[in-house]
């Protein structure tokens, strides 16, 4: 008996010792212990990327990955504002050479009408190498090792890591030309083919040529088809020498340089495409769309978008250094502390998939994610409004050293009027006043405060801050909706809107001719229950004018169909900038770009000849006073016509822990991970402090179970005794 007791005591002591030992470690740490203290950034993604092929990818959740891997010739300067292009793999930003219809050179100041072609000659830096990849592996004789694989050779190979040998090769200009050709590949469905078909010389015909060529090469096969694009020249893209290539554009289109800063124009080594086009590769899910091959600062080493994506430092990454200059305030914010240091500054980035907001937010608070967006459900916990109307983190966030980064997105969310509609559309005074009255009545400042927690600014026109042509304060305000009161734009009083409505022929919200109450129809793709309050709020805005608003919420497909057919009256939509040029917003109101009939992006079908004429002049100009004057005029015309109630430019809020350094919001650049720096030691310390396991509840639960079981045991024994007697 005594021996049994001593065993029990020993076991108890052992258990206590184990518990006390473990109590020092973080039990809830989701990462392997081997990663402790390493220079690894942990972050999350919610939506899995669909495409990682730079010819196909076009969404921000895809760019989060491929922009770190693929390198177009240009990039956006990380620190400078307004957004400025800078060379990435290119030696310098090219200036276009203008040619006339006979391909004779024109002076740089030639009028756009005289320019038939613009030629961009881009020279890339020598000595840039691709990431290690089996597509480049060669045997001793210099033959590509994995380019003639059969079923036997592919046995057991289901990931790139299953190929033991890798190789690399120098980046050459022909790789850029190859990628431009890929935009027309019939199987890739590049989303910018139609745009580029308008500008890159020969692109439209090239797409047709490739479609025919592909059908010939494939001969009905679906797997193992490789179309050698080198055999099909494209007039608008050619390699001049090993490090130089030319892109020939129809007319003048300065925005092409912005496109060339996107992954669509990143280099693609033909070896990679040939490697992945071998028979049996696709059946093993080995595709170029899944395994990117680039020259960028990082390479994708784990691609499991259902769980985790891992980017690791590319060991072949070329020389690139942290910028030495930025905005005047950057040095004070510590953003130049790493000036001149070789990039990237972080060894590895682990993206974990978090579909739900609650685990995502809590892991950030526990220190297991280094950065987080501010989720709606945790906004109050994270952010507070200061007395001056600014935003800051709450005290509890401050105590954890969490910082808030804010920026206005290069986006706009607007309420549009269908200009083809008989009630709200048209260019007469009656309809214009009706639209202006509605624009005044919808109090976007209130909407931002109630539904966006202050995350946005009321738009004064289509241009968001940061885009050339945007002007702050009264100078940039919409005089048809705002008054300038002591230097600050103030929304006009509702009485003014009522007066406009009356002048439009709807006194007190009734048609003066028929006496019928005015009912407007509002199309939206916002169908979730969380949107109900906002849609009710919209109704209330028009009730201020005694106008009825009937909300017609449908799914996005139906909504788009209605817009294409022009079956809407009022609608809400948005636009995210492709590049920081006013053309990318003002074209949303350009007549020939209308939705109905032309299938363009001008959903309001606004078609004002004066605006169109000004747009055509403005779109090809360099930024400068002359361009600004034209943009001001365009904004005046559009504001008076009010095809949109200008809506909101959203603000982006990001939270980051104190151990993340060098973060500066940049809404144009996507390849920003290489600039970030981490301090793993403070992170390890804080994680340990914030995540000590609390063990008493375990003991309490066990006790509770024991206490619950005790009456049952007692009752059972009593019953058994009774039965025995």
């Amino acid at each position, binding site marked *: 008996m005594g021996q049994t007791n001593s065993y029990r005591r020993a076991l108890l002591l052992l258990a206590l010792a184990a518990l006390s030992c473990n109590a020092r470690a973080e039990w809830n740490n*989701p990462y392997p212990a081997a990663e402790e203290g390493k220079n690894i950034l942990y972050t999350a993604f919610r939506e899995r990327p669909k495409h990682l092929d730079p010819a196909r990818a076009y969404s921000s959740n895809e760019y989060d990955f491929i922009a770190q891997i693929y390198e177009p010739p240009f990039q956006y300067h990380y620190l400078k504002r307004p957004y400025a292009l800078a060379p990435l793999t290119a030696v310098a930003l090219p200036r276009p050479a203008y040619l006339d219809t006979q391909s004779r050179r024109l002076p740089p100041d030639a009028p756009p009408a005289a320019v038939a072609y613009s030629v961009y000659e881009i020279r890339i830096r020598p000595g840039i190498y691709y990431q290690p990849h089996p597509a480049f592996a060669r045997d001793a004789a210099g033959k590509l090792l994995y380019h003639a694989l059969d079923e036997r050779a592919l046995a057991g190979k289901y990931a790139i890591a299953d190929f033991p040998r890798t190789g690399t090769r120098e980046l050459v200009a022909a790789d850029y030309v190859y990628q431009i050709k890929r935009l027309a590949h019939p199987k890739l469905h590049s989303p910018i083919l139609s745009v580029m078909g308008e500008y890159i010389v020969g692109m439209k015909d090239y797409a047709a040529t490739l479609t025919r060529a592909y059908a010939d090469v494939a001969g009905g096969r679906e797997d193992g088809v490789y179309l050698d694009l080198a055999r099909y020249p494209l007039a608008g893209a050619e390699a001049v020498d090993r490090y130089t290539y030319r892109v020939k554009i129809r007319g003048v289109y300065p925005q092409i340089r912005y496109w060339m800063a996107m992954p669509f124009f990143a280099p693609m080594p033909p070896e990679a495409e040939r490697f992945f086009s071998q028979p049996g590769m696709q059946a093993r899910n080995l595709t170029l769309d899944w395994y990117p091959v680039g020259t960028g600062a990082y390479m994708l080493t784990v691609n499991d978008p259902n769980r985790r994506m891992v980017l690791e430092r590319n060991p072949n990454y070329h020389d690139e250094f942290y910028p030495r200059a930025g905005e005047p305030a950057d040095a004070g914010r510590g953003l130049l502390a790493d000036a001149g240091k070789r990039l990237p500054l972080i060894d590895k980035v682990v993206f974990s998939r978090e579909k739900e907001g609650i685990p995502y937010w809590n892991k950030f608070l526990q220190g297991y994610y280094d950065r987080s967006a501010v989720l709606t459900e945790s906004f109050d916990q994270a952010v507070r409004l200061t007395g001056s109307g600014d935003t800051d983190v709450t005290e509890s966030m401050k105590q954890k050293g969490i910082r808030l980064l804010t920026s206005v997105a290069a986006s706009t969310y607007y309420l549009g009027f269908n200009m083809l509609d008989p009630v709200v559309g048209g260019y007469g005074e009656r309809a214009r006043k009706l639209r202006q009255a509605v624009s005044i009545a919808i109090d976007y400042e209130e909407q931002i405060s109630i539904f966006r927690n202050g995350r946005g600014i009321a738009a004064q026109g289509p241009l968001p801050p940061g885009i050339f042509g945007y002007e702050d304060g009264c100078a940039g305000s919409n005089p048809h909706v705002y008054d300038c009161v002591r230097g600050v734009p103030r929304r006009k009083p509702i009485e003014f809107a009522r007066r406009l409505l009356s002048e439009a022929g709807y006194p007190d919200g009734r048609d003066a001719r028929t006496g019928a109450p005015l009912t407007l129809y509002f199309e939206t793709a916002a169908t979730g229950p969380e949107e109900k309050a906002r849609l009710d709020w919209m109704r209330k805005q028009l009730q201020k004018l005694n106008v009825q608003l009937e909300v017609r919420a449908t799914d996005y497909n139906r909504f788009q169909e209605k817009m294409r057919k022009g079956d809407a009256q009022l609608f809400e939509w948005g636009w995210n900038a492709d590049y920081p040029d006013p053309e990318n917003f003002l074209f949303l109101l350009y007549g020939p770009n209308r939705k109905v009939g032309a299938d363009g992006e001008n959903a309001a079908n606004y078609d004002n000849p004066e605006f169109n004429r000004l747009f055509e002049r403005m779109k090809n100009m360099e930024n400068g006073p002359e361009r600004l004057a034209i943009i001001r005029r365009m904004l005046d015309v559009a504001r008076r016509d009010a095809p949109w109630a200008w809506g909101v430019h959203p603000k982006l809020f990001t939270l980051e822990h104190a151990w993340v350094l060098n973060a500066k919001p940049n809404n144009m650049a996507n390849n920003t991970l290489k600039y970030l720096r981490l301090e793993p030691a403070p992170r390890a310390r804080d994680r340990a402090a914030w995540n000590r396991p609390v063990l008493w509840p375990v003991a309490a639960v066990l006790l509770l179970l024991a206490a619950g079981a005790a009456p049952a045991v007692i009752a059972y024994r009593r019953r058994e005794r009774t039965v025995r007697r």
Partner: protein
Amino acid sequence: MIAYIVRRLLHAVPILVGVNLITFALFFFVNSPDDMARIHLGVKRVTPEAIAKWKEDRGFNRPLFYNAAAAGADKVADTIFFRHSVRLFAGDFGRSEDGRDIRREIFQRMWPSVAIALPTFAVGILVYITFAMLLAFFRGTYLDAWGVVACVGMMSVSTLFYVIGGQYLVSKLWHLVPISGYDAGGLHALKFLALPVIVGVVSGVGSSTRLYRSFFLEEIGKDYVRTARAKGLSEPRVLFRHVLGNALIPILTGVVVVIPLLFVGSLIMESFFGIPGLGSYTIDAITSQDFFVVRAMVFLGAVLYIVGLILTDISYSLADPRVRLE
């Protein structure tokens, strides 16, 4: 028994054709191929030519069920339904919209689902039967009454509450396990499984315990139990030896049928705990309107359900010698 199983398998063919037809019809009545193209090509700069090319690439430029322009058998065969359905029966699920082989994806994602579902199922059955036996043993006492009240209370609460509550208490407040995530293999994986399994078991305690208790009580009132007691058997022996065995048949009805479905995972649990299983695969496919994946998952679910029903029948004959499968 073999003849019976073969017959049931043959019956399954028209059922699967029907399931496939309904899935197809529902999907294409809600989404036209044009809608699908727009979703997959993105919302910006999508031209009618790009849509036409996308549809042609996938064979969505054909009529849905009947091709009047075709000749002979092609009137039926050269349609979207026929071309995309026949291969299903050969186990060829095709490719998802992102170009991935669906069969391989299913095979990969089945295991995380099983890793959660199997322990939840096994532990759950043990716990529920134990609790139900306990309540049956103390039938008519305060313990039984309060137990039933607790069960009703627990089954009235949404699973989501258990998930969020479990994450809040166990992970956020007590820091005992990661709040979400998944790791394949090794001891490190266990800490990701603990919370979803506990939550899965606890969320089922109310309904299952109450149901099994009623099965046990029904058996307890029968003559053979009275006879067993009269012969002087102890109450635990009566319960475990006789009542449990006979109550197994109704329990098997509910239990065996779900065994094959353990492979297809749980939509809520996988979503909240970040488990990359088939449940989350299905949700992703629905969200992104990936017809090929949705169809494959519905088909797989139907096949597994049929398998589950056949297994249930077989288990009857094993549990009760009076049942003959003919």
